[in-house]
């Protein structure tokens, strides 16, 4: 008898991803979907699609979904979770969505320690609208709206959402991960799993930030983009756990 070593996860539909070649949105979708399947929570999951490149991920995740206005996913998730506490509710948001227009919603979801799971995609640009500067764009990084490179005097230093949220008492679990190589992908999956387990235990707000790539708007090949993420992004956005439930702290 042959053993199946790789199989499409039930957490994803048959629909082909709409992401550009080499974009790590796809990997992150797979990790979330696999975790939903492995924890056997697909049947109770309700996901929130953002505004951004992942806007149509209601077609990809094989569970109930709601599409939210730009940045409002944590509020929509709050509305769902409060009336359906037995369901598993998660948002999937980019850095324009979460770190710019939706800062109030994410900060207060953490502040109330909403029992939801947030998957945050930090790719240092606004992907969908064509690579404009995001609050996460690195100093000196050229984008379509910072054509001379981000100038910290004009636009400030990039915002570190994990560190910011970790200062909020209600943030139960905050971790930053990356998917630039297989070892990190495995680590990232463990973080996603933990973020959902925390919700299943009713422990409160769980947040996983992904360093992600946007080869198209970074003007790089997929491999160059992975290297750039590793060399430049992680340098400014260190990986690791910023907050975790007391019982789990080593």
């Amino acid at each position, binding site marked *: 008898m042959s053993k199946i070593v790789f199989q499409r996860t039930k957490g994803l*539909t048959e629909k082909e991803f709409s992401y550009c070649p080499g974009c790590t949105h796809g990997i992150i979708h797979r990790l979330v979907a696999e975790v939903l399947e492995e924890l056997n929570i*697909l*049947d*109770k*999951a*309700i996901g*929130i*699609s953002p505004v951004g490149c992942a*806007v*149509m991920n*209601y*077609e990809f*995740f*094989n*569970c*109930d*979904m*709601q*599409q*939210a*206005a730009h940045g*409002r996913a944590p*509020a*929509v*998730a*709050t*509305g*769902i979770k*409060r*009336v*359906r506490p037995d*369901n*598993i509710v998660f948002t999937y948001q980019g850095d324009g969505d979460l770190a710019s227009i939706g800062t*109030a*919603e994410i*900060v*207060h979801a953490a*502040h109330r320690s909403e029992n939801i799971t947030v998957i945050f995609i930090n790719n240092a640009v606004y992907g969908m609208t064509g690579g404009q500067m995001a609050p996460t764009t690195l100093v000196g990084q050229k984008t379509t709206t910072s054509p001379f490179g981000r100038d910290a005097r004009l636009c400030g230093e990039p915002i570190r959402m994990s560190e910011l949220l970790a200062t909020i008492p209600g943030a139960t679990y905050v971790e930053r991960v990356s998917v630039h190589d297989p070892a990190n992908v495995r680590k990232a999956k463990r973080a996603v799993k933990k973020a959902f387990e925390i919700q299943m235990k009713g422990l409160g707000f769980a947040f996983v930030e992904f360093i992600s790539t946007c080869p198209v708007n970074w003007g790089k090949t997929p491999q160059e983009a992975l290297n750039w993420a590793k060399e430049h992004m992680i340098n400014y956005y260190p990986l690791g756990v910023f907050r975790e439930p007391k019982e789990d702290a080593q």
Partner: protein
Amino acid sequence: MAKVMMKGNEAMALAALKAGCKAFFGYPITPQSELPEYLAKHMPKYGGVFLQAESEVAAINMVYGASGAGVRVMTSSSSPGIALKQEGISYMAGAELPAVIINVMRGGPGLGGIQPSQADYKQITRGGGNGDYYVIAYAPEDLQETVNVIKEAFDVADLYSNPVMIAVDGLIGQMMEPVDVDMEVSKRELPEKTWATTGTQGKRPPVNINSLYLDPLNLEKHALKLAEKYRLIKENEQRYELVNMDGAELVIVAFGTMARIVRSAIELLSEEGIKVGLLRPITIWPFPEKAFNEIPDSVKGILSCELSTGQMIDDVKIANNGRLPVGFFGRTGGMLPEPEEIVSAVKAMLGGLKHE
């Protein structure tokens, strides 16, 4: 049940509870704050959820989420807060989600004032947010009617899967009036919410709550489907009251608090032998165009009376369709007219008409 004295904002909250409202999300603003305060205290007894959001923007998006999850949900606010909710209301109309939104209107623009106003008429009746949509809007004139329409509004929202707004003002919100919260109201036969995100529970394919249609042909189809729904609403849900129409020389169109003042003016006028009727819209969207067919031949002109500088008058003109002269009287900024001011406006208009 007999009538009891209640403050408007509290009676509105109780009406929602009686209608089976199971979730409330809102943000404090005068002159409606007693409404969320009442729910904060009493919602738990009814097994529902009360949450004070970080902003009106967040509150309406929480409403979106809860409604999408299939639960009867409400928010309340006042004019500047309703302005902030427009994004979410447009998304809800697009995604065809029901909810009841109470707007205890105050003066504007900007921070404006906190006194009664009807200056949000256009914002309410033209959709308010982006896109081709409408919210069903009731503008009751006293507390009993307000309580009744709130109870009905939850059914109407569910029936059409569309947001419903209750447009009142601080006078109704703040005043103590005798009210029977258990008065029977008409009930609708409601479809099951098969579209709600409850988790598949392994029993059905996933569902999705959404207002995105990237293909223009599909978005057009969606808009046409909504348009057909709005046509049905216009046909079935216009509501109005006609007062003192027989043999009237002039008809005043007025809603809400203004209609109450107009009633006093009409009595003063009748003491002087001047017969004036009242056409009182109870729904401001759909605007009760049908009522204009019932205006008798004795009527020589129409006077739109509003707590604004003149907004509903455009709908009055559309409904009147050029048949009769249309005049305007209004006070705004939170100023309420004395009935005598309306009496003078009526006499001036009638005088002008005689000289034509």
